[in-house]
């Protein structure tokens, strides 16, 4: 499988009056061609910052990619100039934001906003751009595209707007689409339609997708692989099957337990107790120590190394250490 994106040891910090926020602290992951990687985790764990870093859209100041590399087709995006980046944004890598109600400019027509990326990056005539726009509107399922192009965002419903945002992101046929909580702001039936649309688009175009969400239900529907983030680190990653059925990290297990399940309706959710650590001075050891039911002394002092359980499945937890495993096994026997 061809790797199109390879993120290594990514660090992002924000310098604020209160101190330095270490929002992303050494993230490693990659993305294969045509696959969907979901990044999940609680609010504030650094999902958006990671995706903005890939687009090089971290506001600087206060933000900064302080270390690491982001290789896209062999080119390190971290080292590109702003101008070189502009030729990648919207063309090779596109992004969709959470709230479709605010992602469209209220004073410009849908047509203008759809076509401007195309006109910016490709040498085409107005008529060609319009044809392409109509084609995209059809792809994302907007009826009467010809007429709709002339309308303004306020004339569309939330679900329709998100379809337009998706069309906008895909119009230059990017290889990578980053969707930051694309369905969170929508109601449940519309959510399902949009997810269905993602699947359809991926089949039609072969685009690779990074999907950011804290909704494991969404993940179950469209992800191939899942990366679980906690306090600025990816603490477990694996195929959808591995994460849903063989999760190893106590945090991942906690997350899975807190998912509402259709078959267990009415049953109480068990969210993980406690709150994530302060990212101004994150703990040196495992950041989950304070909330982890298995925490050991070593967890607090030293960050656990990465254990590879399979080609895809990796986890950062001291419980993977042979000695911990033996001990757990012996207590289980008693």
């Amino acid at each position: 499988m061809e790797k199109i994106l390879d993120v290594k040891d990514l660090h992002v910090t924000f310098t604020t009056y209160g101190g330095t926020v270490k929002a992303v602290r050494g993230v490693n992951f990659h993305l294969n061609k045509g696959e969907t990687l979901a990044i999940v985790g609680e609010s504030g764990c650094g999902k958006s910052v990671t995706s903005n870093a890939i687009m090089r859209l971290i506001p600087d100041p206060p933000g900064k990619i302080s270390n690491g590399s982001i290789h896209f087709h062999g080119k390190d995006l971290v080292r590109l100039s702003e101008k070189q980046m502009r030729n990648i944004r919207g063309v090779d890598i596109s992004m969709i934001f959470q709230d479709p109600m605010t992602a469209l400019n209220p004073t410009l027509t849908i047509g203008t906003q759809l076509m401007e990326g195309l006109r910016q990056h490709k040498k085409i005539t107005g008529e060609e751009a319009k044809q392409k726009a109509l084609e995209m509107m059809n792809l994302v399922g907007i009826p009467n595209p010809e007429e709709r192009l002339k309308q303004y965002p306020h004339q569309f419903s939330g679900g329709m707007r998100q379809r337009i945002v998706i069309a906008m992101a895909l119009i230059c046929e990017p290889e990578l689409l980053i969707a930051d909580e694309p369905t969170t702001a929508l109601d449940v039936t519309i959510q399902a339609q949009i997810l269905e649309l993602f699947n359809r688009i991926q089949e039609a175009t072969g685009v690779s997708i990074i999907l950011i969400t804290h909704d494991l239900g969404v993940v179950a529907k469209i992800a191939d692989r899942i990366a679980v983030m906690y306090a600025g680190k990816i603490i477990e990653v694996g195929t959808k099957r591995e994460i849903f059925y063989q999760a190893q990290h106590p945090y991942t297990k906690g997350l899975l337990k807190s998912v509402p399940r259709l078959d267990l309706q009415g049953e109480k959710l068990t969210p993980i107790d406690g709150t994530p650590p302060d990212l101004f001075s994150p703990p040196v050891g495992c950041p989950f120590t304070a909330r982890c039911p298995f925490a050991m002394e070593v967890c607090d002092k030293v960050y656990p190394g990465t254990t590879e359980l399979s080609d895809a499945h990796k986890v950062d937890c001291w419980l993977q250490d042979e000695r911990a495993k033996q001990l757990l096994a012996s207590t289980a026997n008693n």
Partner: protein
Amino acid sequence: MLKYILKRLLIMAVTLWIIVTLTFVLMVSIPGSPLNEERGTNETVQKNLEAHYNLDEPYHIQYLLYLKSIVTLDFGPSIKQPNQTVNDLLGRGFPISFELGIVTILVAVFSGIILGIVAALKHNGIIDYMAMSLAVLGISIPNFVLATLLIQQLAVKYEIFPVATWSSPAHMVLPIIALATGPMAIIARLTRSTMLEVLTQDYIKMARAKGLSPWKIVFKHALKNALMPVVTIMGTLLAGILTGTFVIEKIFAIPGMGKYFVESINQRDYPVIMGTTVFYSAFLIFMLFLVDIAYGILDPRIKIHKKGGES
């Protein structure tokens, strides 16, 4: 659209009528008359003059006569300068005042917006700091003080510009600076703050994610949205500039409408008071109407025309 405009015109007419009525009430309730001055005119002459100007009629008749003069746009001759009609005075004064006002607005709007944008883009930098200090000064110094300062420094001391009157472009520079600085400062500050807010919006992030150049992001995506609040305060600014012209015309001895307006009040020259008031009010009301139309054009969410539905 047509229906909206008709409705607005009706409201404008009613507004104007209220202004005229209030002016009339004020006019007759101020003691004194244009005719009884110290030079003790003889009683019969006085009576004849009063009859001539209909000042001996009861108030309601006078009021109706005024309304008639407004509807027919004929305010008759000035009482103080009987060889001139009010329309003559307006015809002479208005072009000058209009020129002063329009150039002032253009200068204030353009320089204010540019200053605001630059300050927002260089947010917290030295340029931002300088621009905003300038703006605070501009807002806090009244235009007549600024006018005096400008005359003293640039006209009298350094003789760069002529002192007074309105005969060449060089004559216009100082009055326009004096009149435009305040509104410019207000526009600059407002543009800066709305621009900063707009630049944090998701659609700006989206525009950046499309790979648009900073130039396009600012002028195509941000500016129109940032200008919306500026358009809303334009009405107030216009009124301010309009009243500002009275003072500035006086200070710079510019023979505009303001001069006649102020003089007419001092001299109780009723027809001139009425004529200038109606003219100023009608003009301002019309400008406010234009501002509203501009707002509707700028913001598609405001529906002036009934077209296109919610989906």
